[in-house]
C-alpha cells in the first residue's frame, strides 16, 4: 500500500534522533490519537542548519517526518514555513487517502518549531 519512497524513508529514516543543543523544539499530536512528533532545529543566519525528529506513529507518519526534515534542511526559515502537506505527500510518491492526515503532523511540527524559535529570539 505504500510507495517505495515511503518504505525507504520508513526503513532508513533521515534525521531521526535527538539534539542536545537545539535552538528550538516543538511537539505536535497527542498520544491518545496515537500519533506524536517532536522536531528539533538548529538555526544559523536564519537558515535551518540542522534538524532532527522523533515520531511515534504509523509508517506514513515516520516517513513524512523523515522526508519533510530533508526538504527543509538548508532552507531559510521563511522558505521552510512554506512547506505544505501536499508537497510532502508528493515527495513521498503519494500516500493512501486514509493516511494523508498522518503527514500533516510533519509540516505542523516544523512550523511550530520555527515559531518557537522566533518567539524565543524575539524575547531575547
Amino acid at each position, binding site marked *: 500500500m505504500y510507495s517505495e519512497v515511503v518504505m525507504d524513508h520508513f526503513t532508513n529514516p533521515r534525521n531521526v534522533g535527538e539534539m542536545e543543543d537545539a535552538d528550538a523544539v516543538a511537539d505536535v499530536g497527542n498520544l491518545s490519537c496515537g500519533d506524536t512528533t517532536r522536531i528539533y532545529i538548529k538555526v544559523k543566519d536564519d537558515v535551518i542548519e540542522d534538524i532532527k525528529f*522523533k515520531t*511515534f*506513529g*504509523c509508517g*506514513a*507518519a515516520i516517513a513524512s517526518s523523515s522526508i519533510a526534515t530533508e526538504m527543509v534542511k538548508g532552507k531559510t526559515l521563511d522558505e521552510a514555513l512554506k512547506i505544505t502537506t501536499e508537497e510532502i505527500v508528493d515527495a513521498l510518491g503519494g500516500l493512501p487517502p486514509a493516511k494523508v492526515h*498522518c503527514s500533516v503532523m510533519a509540516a505542523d511540527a516544523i512550523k511550530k518549531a520555527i515559531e518557537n524559535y522566533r518567539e524565543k529570539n524575539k524575547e531575547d
Partner: protein
Amino acid sequence: MKRVYLDHSATTPVRPEVVEEMMKYLTDNWGNPSSVYSRGREARKGIDEAREKIAHLLGANPQEIIFTSGGTEADNYAVMGAAFANQKKGKHIITTSIEHHAVLDTCKFLERQGFEVTFLPVTPEGIVRVEDFERALRQDTILVSVMHVNNEVGTIQPVEEIGRVCREKGIIFHVDAVQSFGKIPVNVDELNADLLSISAHKIYGPKGVGCLYIRKGTKVQKLFYGGAQERRRRPGTENVAGIVGFGKAAELAIKEMGEETEKLTKLRDKLIAGLQEKISDIKLNGDPVQRICNNVNVSFKYVEGESLLLSLDMKGIEASSGSACTSGSLDPSHVLTAMGVPFEFIHGSVRMTLGRDNTEEDIDYVLEVFPEIVDRLREMSPLYNK
C-alpha cells in the same frame, strides 16, 4: 526471506484437499442445483452432502443449516432476522461490547429502527460477566447475541451459562461461532444456541461462504428475497463450489481438532513467554487461560501498531493490529477500548494468530527479530526514555 503467516484469525489458506473438491464443482458439476435434471442433480448432491456434514459436526439437523455468503451475512441474518420476526413480543436485545462489527453494527442499525440494545461490558480480561447479563434481562428481551470466542483477544465467553438462562426464559440465543468452530467443541445443544454462525475461510475453506444454524421452530425473517433456494430461507443461485469446499474444510477441521489444539497451545504459550521475557513494557491482552489456542495479543508501550506491523512485514511476518492507524478508521480497537486497556497500550497492540502451518522454528524466528524491531521504533519515539 522467511515468511511466517500469523494472521489466521483474519483468514487462512485454502487447504489443497478443499481446492480439489471445489475444482470438481467448477469444472464437471457446474449445473444449477435448482435444475430438475441430470446436471442440476449432481450440483444439488454436492450441496446436500456438505449440509449433512456440517449439521452432523454441530449436532444439528441438515434442515437447520442455511448456507450464506459468509460469517457477516450469517450474523446479520440471525440478529436482524430474529429481531424483526419477533418484535411484537418485545424490542429489547442484549449483546456485548466486544462483538464483531457484523453483530455490533447490525445492533446499532436496529437501534435506529426502534429497538433497544444493551451492550454488555467486559472484564479487563475481555470476558462478559454472567451477572451483568442476568441483570440486563428484561421482560421484553427477545434476543441475546454473544460471540463464542472473540476475534481480537481470543477470549472464550461463557456462552453455555448464558444459553442456559436464555433457554429457561424462552429468549432466542445467537452465538457467533466464527472464531471457535474448528478450534473448540461447538455443539448447538450444549450451547443452547437457537442461531449460530460460522464462516468457511477461517477454517481453511474458501472466502465468501458461511452458514447460519437455525434451530427448528425459531422465527427469523429473511434478509432478502427471490428464488426458492435453501428451503425458501436464502434465495440466490448457490455458490456450489464454495459450499462443497466449506463442507470439506469443516470435516477436516473437526477431525484434526484435538492434535491441532495441543500443538497450537504450545506454540502460543512459547510465543507469549518469549516476548514477555525479551521485551519490557509489554502487556498481554485478554485472559491468559480462558483463551483460544491460537491467539496472542500483546501491546507494547511507546510503539505504534502500524509501524510495528510494517516492520514485521519487512521481516516476512504477517500479523494485525488494533491500532487506529491500521484499521483505516481513526478509532482504535473497540475491543481493547471496552476492556479498558490504557491508551498508551492500545495503540501499540499486535495480534498474532497461529495456524496449522506454523512451527517451533517460526516462533523462534519471531522471537529473534521482534525485540530489535521494538527497540528501533522505541528509539524513534519522543515518548520513550531509556
